């Protein structure tokens, strides 16, 4: 039995897990339409490879991974592609992003699945295969799993995250109770791929059935199921790693470099389905809870409209909104039209009783309670101070980016300050500034390169001219490499009248064509 290493801070909010963890996982009936977002993971969105009107089979790739940090997206069921267009996605902004809209035909016709012999394939091939099957972290951060597996050749400790510390959410709990054998098989796969010396599964002590099931499933293997005390946010990757191994992952260091890596139980199960059955990630387990008639866990196809899910759970009349994710780290959904994404572990229907309106904010009294609760050992009151004053540089100096936005500080704040909102605001301002700075640097570099080229062209032309005008003394054949750069300068050269006439003719032609277009568009004559 290994020793636990407590992390700093943490809170224990009311758990609200009993509402939804009693019943078995049920399948949600097929919705009339699936809205599958192409960007369901961290990094680049997938590139669509189907078009409106195409027939797709279940498991067929509809979006190819684009760029290094990306993962593929698949048709969750067979049917017809109605559109590939921007639709509202499950994002706090409520903005639209490219989605593939599929009308299911109800046949559940699978694409032909190829057996992939991952045991005898070499490392990169396995990782590419996982990328093409769209496996990403299902704990909430949706980081492409193949990149996590690609780390070190050997690993000291593989941490499997079954802590599920956030209130209301019980999808991992139910998954461990009902599909522990698949998780066990998945752990064996990850262990082999990462060459891990030991495996530790961390589960909070409020899930005794899940602990029992995981112990049974991991019985034969050398896997330690560690019971950790219920303390939010023990399910944070860094916090759980600290709990189970005593190792702190410093800012900017990859956990793999320290010989530790952490995978969520759901991800491990998806990895098993992908490698042993060739199944892409098509569905996930979602907790539907809060003010609903039938709280519980459902297995829903990705892209299932959230309104369909909530209708399935039976929404009460007094619902004032929906939270996507947990009550601590989730966000209020601007619309239920969006489709379910790989990150959607929980949807909570809010009402005034469960989520009373936040009391008004009062001034920070610098009591330091937030610093005591912060699991990242930051000084939230200082960060708040700087974020509020828009002094982002100072906030960054105080390690704003180590904040995991767990919300523990805001939970304990006696002045009811929504600290995390300020941190999110500061972070997105810093990211935006960085982006525009990068764009400016690029533009400056290109502008300078262009100026240098123009200078050189001018100099070389002058040299050539000098060589031609100076009498006899043999023309130096030096600037030989000039010819390719000469092309853009051509329009200014000799046959000017001729060229002018041709440009004028082309302008007339274009004007006529545009007039024609305008005429079609507006019904008037555009001359």
């Amino acid at each position, binding site marked *: 039995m290994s020793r636990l290493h407590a992390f700093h801070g943490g809170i224990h909010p009311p758990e609200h897990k009993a509402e939804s963890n009693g019943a078995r996982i049920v399948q949600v009936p097929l919705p009339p339409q699936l809205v599958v977002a192409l960007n369901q993971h961290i990094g680049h969105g997938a590139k669509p490879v189907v078009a409106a009107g195409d027939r797709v089979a279940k498991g067929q790739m509809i979006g190819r991974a684009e760029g290094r940090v990306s993962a593929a997206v698949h048709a969750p069921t067979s049917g017809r592609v109605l559109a590939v267009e921007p639709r509202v996605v499950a994002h706090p902004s409520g903005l639209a992003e490219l989605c593939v809209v599929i009308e299911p035909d109800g046949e559940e016709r699978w694409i032909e699945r190829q057996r992939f012999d991952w045991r005898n394939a070499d490392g990169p091939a396995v990782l590419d295969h996982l990328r093409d099957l769209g496996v990403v972290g299902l704990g909430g951060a949706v980081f492409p799993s193949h990149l996590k597996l690609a780390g070190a050749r050997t690993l000291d400790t593989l941490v499997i995250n079954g802590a599920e510390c956030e209130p209301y959410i019980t999808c991992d709990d139910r998954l461990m109770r009902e599909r522990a054998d698949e998780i066990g098989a998945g752990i064996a796969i990850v262990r082999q791929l990462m060459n891990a010396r030991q495996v530790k599964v961390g589960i909070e002590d409020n899930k005794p059935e899940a602990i029992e099931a995981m112990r049974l499933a991991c019985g034969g293997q050398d896997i330690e199921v560690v019971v950790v005390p219920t303390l939010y946010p023990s399910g944070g990757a860094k916090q759980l790693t600290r709990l189970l191994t005593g190792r702190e992952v410093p800012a900017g260091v990859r956990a793999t470099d320290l010989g530790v890596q952490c995978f969520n139980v759901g991800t491990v199960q998806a990895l098993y389905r992908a490698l042993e059955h060739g199944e892409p990630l098509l569905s996930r387990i979602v907790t539907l809870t809060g003010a609903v008639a039938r709280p519980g866990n459902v297995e829903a196809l990705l892209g299932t409209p959230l309104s369909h899910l909530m209708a399935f759970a039976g929404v009460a009349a007094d619902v004032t909104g929906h939270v996507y994710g947990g009550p601590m780290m989730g966000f209020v959904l601007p619309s239920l039209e969006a489709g379910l994404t790989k990150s959607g572990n929980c949807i909570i229907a809010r009402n005034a009783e469960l989520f009373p309106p936040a009391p008004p904010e*009062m001034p920070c009294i610098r009591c330091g309670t937030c610093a005591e609760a912060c699991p990242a050992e930051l000084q939230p009151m200082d960060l708040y101070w700087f974020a509020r004053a828009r002094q982002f540089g100072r906030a960054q100096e105080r390690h704003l980016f180590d904040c995991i936005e767990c919300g523990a500080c805001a939970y304990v704040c006696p002045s009811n300050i929504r600290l995390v909102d300020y941190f999110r605001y500061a972070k997105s301002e810093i990211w935006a500034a960085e982006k525009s700075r990068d764009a400016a640097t690029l533009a400056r570099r290109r502008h300078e390169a262009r100026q240098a080229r123009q200078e050189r062209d001018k100099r070389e032309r002058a040299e050539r001219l000098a060589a031609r005008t100076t009498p006899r003394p043999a023309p130096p054949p030096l600037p030989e490499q000039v010819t390719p750069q000469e092309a853009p300068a051509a329009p200014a050269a000799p046959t000017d009248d001729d060229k002018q006439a041709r440009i004028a003719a082309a302008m007339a032609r274009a004007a006529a064509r545009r007039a024609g277009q305008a005429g079609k568009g507006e019904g008037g004559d555009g001359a």
Partner: protein
Amino acid sequence: MSVLLALCVMAGLALLLGAVLGFAAIRFRVEDDPLVDKIDAILPQTQCAQCGYPGCRPYATAITNDEADINQCPPGGEDGIRQLADLLGREFKPLNAANGVEKPKRVAVIDEQLCIGCTLCIQACPVDAIVGAAKHMHTVIASECTGCELCIAPCPVDCIDMAPLGDTPASWKWRYPVAMLKVVS
């Protein structure tokens, strides 16, 4: 006597240190004005010339030489003026309307049906963001376009439009939290 000695020592020290400083001033002279670099780093590098100078760096030089004011850069906007004011220790002033207005970021789009391949826009683009060759249609590399609009005027067939870059979930920002106030009756 001792007063004289002290005076001599002080005078001698002053001469010596003066000589060292004078030498250092010549030997370690900074050629470029670092202030120009700092101002240039704040400017958005659109190279749009709306400030009245042929590019961002010339404008930065003009600010350093007190020839231009800090409120002549529309793409930099209010934020840019604020940063310049902070850097130079001056008062913030609103954007000079004579130079233009702050617009949301846009990129140029060439209507390829109308393009006659005259290369005039390619020559106008300050960041080489347009590709194409004579008598072949041109196109804009959207990721490199700074939205300076310099390509629009030279186009003989008016086939270039500015398309706004809409907000996407990736570019969306969390807003400044609005604190609810307590109602006092």
